[in-house]
């Protein structure tokens, strides 16, 4: 029972390794280093990254930016709640707000155009979860995340909330329509 007993010699710090252990440690270390360098590699050569662009803000300031965009670029209203669908110019800054319990406003984007999508919360924390492609981000009040996106397939995309935000969390939903030019 020697894992339950002190080592069999007073000095054990220089015992030789068996080949099984030595070989495995070498292989595992190579794999670990590979996985580590994969992340910076993907930042340089991969296409799906979040580079960490973010700003400090307040719900009031952020809300004003959202409203300004909604006023300027709303193209239609949908559902019984008259939710505005906003079609911002290609390449522009787009402001999306998470709040109890909706993603506001709905967006219409052009395929293969690049947008700077700002995301923030006006109250509690929310989880931006874009379906069906399953892209997710944490949405934190007081911070404005900027994700530069290039939708490359047209279609209807749904934003659900996947951070618990109270009783009607499951009703929190938004839309991004990606249309061909």
């Amino acid at each position, binding site marked *: 029972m020697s894992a339950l*007993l002190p080592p*069999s*010699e*007073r*000095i*054990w*710090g*220089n015992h030789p390794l068996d080949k099984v252990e030595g070989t495995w440690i070498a292989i595992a270390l190579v794999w670990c280093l590979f996985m580590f360098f994969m992340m910076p590699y993907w930042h340089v050569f991969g296409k799906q990254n979040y580079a960490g662009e*973010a*700003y*400090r*803000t307040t719900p009031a*300031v*952020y809300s004003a930016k959202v409203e300004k965009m909604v006023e300027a670029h709303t193209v239609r209203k949908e559902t019984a709640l008259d939710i505005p669908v906003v079609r911002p110019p290609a390449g522009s800054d787009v402001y999306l707000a998470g709040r109890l319990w909706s993603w506001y406003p709905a967006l219409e984007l052009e395929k293969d155009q690049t947008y700077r999508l700002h995301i923030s919360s006006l109250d509690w924390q929310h989880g931006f979860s874009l379906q069906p492609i399953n892209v997710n981000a944490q949405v934190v009040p007081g*911070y*404005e995340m900027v994700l530069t996106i290039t939708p490359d397939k047209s279609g209807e995309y749904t934003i659900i909330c996947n951070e618990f935000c109270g009783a009607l969390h499951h009703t929190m939903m938004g839309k991004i329509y990606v249309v061909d030019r």
Partner: protein
Amino acid sequence: MAEPVQRNTNEQEQPVPVLQQILDNPFLLLFLGVVMPTVFYILWGVMEIVTIPMAN
């Protein structure tokens, strides 16, 4: 109870390897185990948050 066994008689005179000295010192390990994540995770992380710029 284990039988008295024949052990290497020279071992008392050998120097204890550095790795073993570290591993045999619980309070040094405690120090390392608290300082490493405090510096790399918490302090560095807090610095990252504090330096997020204001939105214009």
